């Protein structure tokens, strides 16, 4: 565990001195947290919420709105569109950090001295993964906390806040988010182990967000409706996927190939 934490600390010391990485890690959660609040403020100040009728909302949403009045239901509908954004943060931030992790060591020629130490492959990869995983998950949770507090301060009703803190949202943010982060880290580590250029690693790794963007656009276009059942299935699927990806990423990291093929 000690060696894992050393890798994590070193990784953060290196990564967070890189302004570009720091910017991408800080900017995304800020933007995705501020955006729904800004939209909420803009729509609310224009009286748009009152004008929006329950009949304007997708049929499936009616069940969710049970017990909410028209304005609350509209507010909740608007805010729920951003739930997937909180699943985007744990995909993007770990991907940005992890994609650089192995290929970065290759380009700076620091990989060989590290692998020459008694560290095991598992310790090395866990350290790298944890260093990428933790900021993504923490930023997601922090963003969600700010978002909820901001919504409360902006006069969103307690009933709507209650819905935001419902099992659906909590499952999405507290369980699916970390599982997505694990997936993102595994993909980025695999890519980073195989490519020779940090930019290529980042560009390929970030493709991991495509399914989530698909879900997001499906949701806002009314084709997909995110409910508890879907989130539970998503979590279960991710557990299986992450297990496979972890094993595969460890298998793909061949100390020898990386050292001997890299010139």
């Amino acid at each position, binding site marked *: 565990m*000690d*060696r894992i934490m*050393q890798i994590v*600390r*070193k990784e953060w*010391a*290196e990564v967070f*001195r*890189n302004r570009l990485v720091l910017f991408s890690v800080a900017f995304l959660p800020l933007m995705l947290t501020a955006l729904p609040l800004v939209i909420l403020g803009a729509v609310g100040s224009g009286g748009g919420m009152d004008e929006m009728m329950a009949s304007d909302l997708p049929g499936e949403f009616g069940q969710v709105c049970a017990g909410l009045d028209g304005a609350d239901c509209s507010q909740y509908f608007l805010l729920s569109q951003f739930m997937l954004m909180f699943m985007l943060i744990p995909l993007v931030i770990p991907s940005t950090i992890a994609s650089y992790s192995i290929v970065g060591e290759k380009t*700076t*020629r*620091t*990989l*060989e*001295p*590290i*692998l*020459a*130490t*008694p*560290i*095991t492959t598992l310790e090395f990869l866990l350290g790298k993964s944890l260093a990428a995983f933790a900021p993504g998950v923490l930023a997601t949770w922090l963003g969600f906390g700010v978002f909820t507090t901001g919504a409360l301060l902006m006069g969103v009703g307690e009933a709507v806040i209650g819905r935001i803190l419902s099992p659906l949202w909590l499952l999405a943010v507290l369980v699916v988010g970390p599982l997505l982060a694990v997936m993102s880290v595994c993909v980025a580590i695999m890519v980073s182990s195989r490519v020779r250029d940090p930019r290529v690693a980042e560009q390929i790794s970030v493709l991991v967000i495509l399914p989530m963007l698909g879900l997001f656009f499906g949701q806002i276009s009314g084709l997909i409706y995110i409910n508890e059942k879907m989130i539970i299935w998503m979590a279960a699927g991710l557990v299986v996927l992450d297990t496979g990806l972890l094993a595969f990423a460890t298998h793909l990291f061949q*100390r*020898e190939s990386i*050292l*001997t093929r890299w010139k």
Partner: protein
Amino acid sequence: MTAAIQTTNLCRVFGALAAVDSLTVSIERGEVFGFLGPNGAGKTTTIRMLAALIAPSAGSASVAGYKLGKDDQQIRSRVGILTESPGLYDNLSAERNLAFFGRLYRVPDLESQVDRYLKLLGLWGRRQDPAATLSRGMRQKLAIARALLHEPEILFLDEPTSGLDPEAARLVREFIAELKQAGRTIFLCTHNLEEADRLCDRVAVFNSQLVAVDTPAALRYRLFGRKVVFHLLSMQPVFKEIASAFDFVQNVQVFENKLIVTLEDPEKKNPELVRALVSAGAHIQFIGEIKRSLEDIYMQLLETNRGTEAAGDINGKNKTVVEEKHG
């Protein structure tokens, strides 16, 4: 006492290429062993195998008393390696670079150990500076400090002075000499033959296979014999005849007023030769030994090896590997 490094028919193949072919060598504890060879000879591959970074394709080896392939983690914790490039974290300070690696090796009393090596290598004043701001020589010294931090039993140095300016190279060489005095086992890969001659107890000439291994002096003798030059006031034909008459004299050449004699054991035989020449009327101004450089030895061995290899290819035979060990 077991050897520090013992390899038996160690091989490493990359596809169809045999980078290291049947390397059998034994390196004693406290020995500085030079590993010489042209680019692409397989020197770095050998170091990587012995440092348990890559696995051999065949053969066996023990390093620091541990079996390669079985006790790799133990081996890695007991050897230090200076890789071809320093491989430092540019954004981290010199001190932090060392501390990070020290923790991976679980170095006890790390702080004082880091301070010790920073001072020893003259980096104390720059300890807080990011590695990126250090000169090439300082970076190399920092990498050496990193390789030594956990007090390894065996130190692998891959081209330690490569690319350094003469002053920095000298500093690094002096430090290696200090390590030698301290009794460290050092496996030194270098292209700098003068450096190898000065620092190494034994050298191996390697070109995928072991061409020769011995002390520089023994290799010199084996390839060129020992030559003593007699500077005479004037040369007479009889002097060459007198020198050639001795059994221990292998060859005599005359060049201007110099008599160049190839002989065995000049320390013992020279007085006899000197007496005979003086009796014949020779006025000897001074006597010296012609010392061939390690570069001459290296070139000669490689040329012979290439010739044997070519002949082997034509005849479909394997080349001969010359290996001798002089106690």
